[in-house]
């Protein structure tokens, strides 16, 4: 009986020591701090890991190549969420008070929902590139949310456009059946309102087929697909759900070239294991992949060749890795932009970074100087538009790699704008909040 109690006492002492440790370990210096919420464990780890590696490597590269942003060193700390909302909230609370705090990228739709409430009170910007709350595009209602480069509504809209194009015009969609096989969570349900709007416009029939998270059990869903025989299947999955869906489609005999995934269902971990079985499968491409872009070359040169890379070297330049790089690059550019207004070489506060995010103007020339010109389209945000760009391309898996089609699609403003406005108004009414005044935009 003595042994456990001694051990307990020891544990209590170490606990007390460790609780004091974090406050000591972080000295106040001229450093811009990036909290990195990530998940390298759990069912979404295969996709979460390259994403997290890209985010981290970009920060290391900026420090190694440029010595930071105008002399301000970048620091970071990762916090493992496991895609769980409560752990994500804990990470946010742990890291939000760090000196030099910049912004959060929670990497999960569920965590985004929980943090949207909190960032407004704490005045910390939240970037959700290609995910999160679609209505947050309305910067007049969501002051602190930035769904940069696209939301699930723009993604769904582009998919319908692409399918319409394949059919030879959106009017040809009349009478067709489109099934949405989706992750049964806020992430999977977000696109539904937009798809229903398009359903009303074009007269196709939308079938909703939910798949319980994390998505390894899909037999029932594909039985339904087999019964309904839809003309197209939209795949709204993440992590293990995607490769499972492709295997099930193969087993069901559903043609893969009739399947269109969202940009979170269009990376190497989703199709690699299925290989030839996924041949012909299409997905949205928010960014390109590959090691040719200058930014990736720089990461290889300044980080990986020095042996300081975060993940395996052969994953550098994969789809999700590159997306992580873009997310971090936009965050870094927001700080740079804020420094132009509030003083170069200073550490920006989260409120100043928010201004930077709201005034991003990355044209082709600027993107070229960042080495991102082949990777993404120009992006420019404003007070009213927190997204900045709504374009994406379609990519197809050829059995070995993703082939990106050259043509760009842009989400239809006329459909999305009223929906965003109405959704934002409802959010404000529910929360008893008011729209930001015009004068607030200047701040």
């Amino acid at each position, binding site marked *: 009986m003595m042994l456990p*109690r001694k051990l307990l006492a020891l544990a209590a002492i170490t606990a007390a020591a460790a609780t004091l440790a974090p406050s000591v370990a972080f000295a106040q210096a001229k450093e811009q701090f990036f909290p990195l919420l990530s998940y390298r464990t759990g069912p979404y780890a295969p996709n979460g890991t390259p994403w997290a590696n890209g985010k981290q490597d970009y920060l290391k590269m900026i420090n190694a190549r440029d010595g930071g942003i105008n002399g301000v060193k970048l620091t970071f700390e990762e916090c493992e969420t496991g895609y769980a*909302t409560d752990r994500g909230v804990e990470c946010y609370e742990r890291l939000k008070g760090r000196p030099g705090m910049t912004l959060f990228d929670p990497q999960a739709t569920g965590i985004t*929902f929980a943090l949207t409430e909190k960032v407004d009170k704490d005045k910390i910007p939240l970037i959700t590139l290609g995910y999160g709350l679609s209505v947050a595009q309305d910067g007049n209602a969501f002051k602190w949310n930035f769904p940069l480069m696209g939301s699930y509504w723009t993604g769904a809209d582009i998919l319908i456009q692409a399918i319409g194009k394949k059919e030879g015009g959106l009017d040809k969609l009349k009478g067709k059946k489109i099934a949405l096989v989706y992750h049964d969570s806020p992430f999977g349900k977000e696109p539904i309102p937009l798809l229903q709007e398009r359903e009303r416009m074009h007269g196709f029939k939308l079938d909703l087929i939910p798949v319980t998270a994390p998505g390894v059990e899909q037999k029932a869903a594909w039985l339904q697909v087999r019964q309904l025989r839809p003309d197209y299947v939209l795949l709204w999955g993440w992590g293990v759900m995607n490769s499972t869906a492709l295997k099930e489609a193969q087993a069901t005999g559903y043609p893969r070239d009739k399947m269109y995934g969202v940009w979170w269902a269009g990376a190497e971990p989703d199709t690699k294991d299925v290989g030839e079985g996924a041949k012909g499968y299409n997905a949205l491409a928010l960014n390109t992949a590959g090691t040719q872009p200058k930014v990736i070359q720089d990461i290889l040169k300044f980080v990986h060749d020095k042996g300081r890379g975060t993940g395996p070297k052969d994953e550098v330049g994969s789809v999700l890795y590159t997306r992580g790089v873009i997310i971090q690059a936009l965050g870094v550019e927001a700080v740079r932009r804020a420094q132009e207004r509030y003083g170069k070489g200073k550490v920006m506060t989260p409120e100043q970074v928010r201004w930077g995010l709201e005034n991003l103007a990355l044209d082709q020339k600027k993107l070229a100087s960042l080495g991102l010109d082949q990777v993404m389209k120009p992006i420019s945000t404003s007070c009213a538009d927190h997204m900045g760009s709504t374009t994406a391309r379609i990519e197809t898996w050829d059995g070995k790699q993703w082939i990106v089609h050259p043509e760009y699609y842009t989400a239809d403003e006329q459909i999305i704008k009223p929906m965003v406005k109405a959704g934002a108004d409802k959010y404000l009414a529910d929360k008893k909040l008011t729209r930001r005044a015009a004068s607030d935009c200047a701040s």
Partner: protein
Amino acid sequence: MLYRENGQFKTSYRADLQIFPILQDRWTILALLAFAFLVVPSFASDYYFRAILIPFLIMALAALGVNILVGYCGQISLGSGAFMAVGAYGAYNFFVRIPDMPLVPALILGGLCATAFGIVFGLPSLRVKGLYLAVATLAAQFFADWMFLRIKWLVNDSPSGSVSVNGLQVFGLPIESGVSKYWFCLTVLCIVALLAKNLVRSAIGREWMAIRDMDVAAAVIGIRPVYAKLTAFAVSSFIVGMAGALWAFVYLGAWEPAAFNVDVSFRLLFMVIIGGLGSITGAFFGAAFIVVLPIFLNQFLPFAASLVGLSVSTEAASHAELMIFGALIVWFLIVEPHGLAKLWSTGKQKLRLWPFPH
């Protein structure tokens, strides 16, 4: 030497029936309460409130509820996450649908929704026992998952199924800051813990324990199994439902059905087993173990490694966290199968005899 009841004479039944019959215990509890209510808020940072203390308090409350069912009445349940979800969404519906609904009644109504749900899913307990019942209550978990994902009305027609609340206040005082949330949760927990403690000491509590220890014998001496089992389900799910509502309203603020998935049920069961079956104190120990330890390990491991000049990647830290956590659970179950609460009471017993053990 200090912890001894020599000279403390009880001259009335009242004195004999106190929760803490030993004077030193009473003082310790009072000091602990004063510490929790007054001292902790003065030094804990916002992070401790929002990320550690509040989830700990709410999970302790939930574990208390589960302990009544599992520990005191012996009805193994894997549906605790579902009861939490019903409490959370029940309270949410009352909160948003009734204008100017105050927070506390909404929480209680949410708890009552969970009570009704718990009684319905407690009905199989009249026929099945043990593992069979555990599987039957798992049905409650899956049913709740299905219900909150599919029935739009329950989530106020939110297209994504994610809901949120704001503007929480109690008697006009806003529950926004970490301290106010902490005080609120602590108050609820203290009240419920006191009620629960008295309940398990009363006639109904003894009926539960009789059912747990040997249901046939209990029936023979005149205890109605139907009544005892269903009241245990009702009381337990009420408390768990309140905890669910607090978890959603106070801790998360915005949540989706996945916040109350089957993992939560398992974690609650672990809390009860590791904390100590059939012990109110055990709920607190169990919650501390399950809630605080992973967070602590997650921060402590990289720190400990840096002391010896190593750097640990996030990935390695999380894997190590899972491994250490799992190993500790196994170790506890082998070394102290009656949970941390038993360890605690053994310690107290030894202190009473110290320095002259016999």
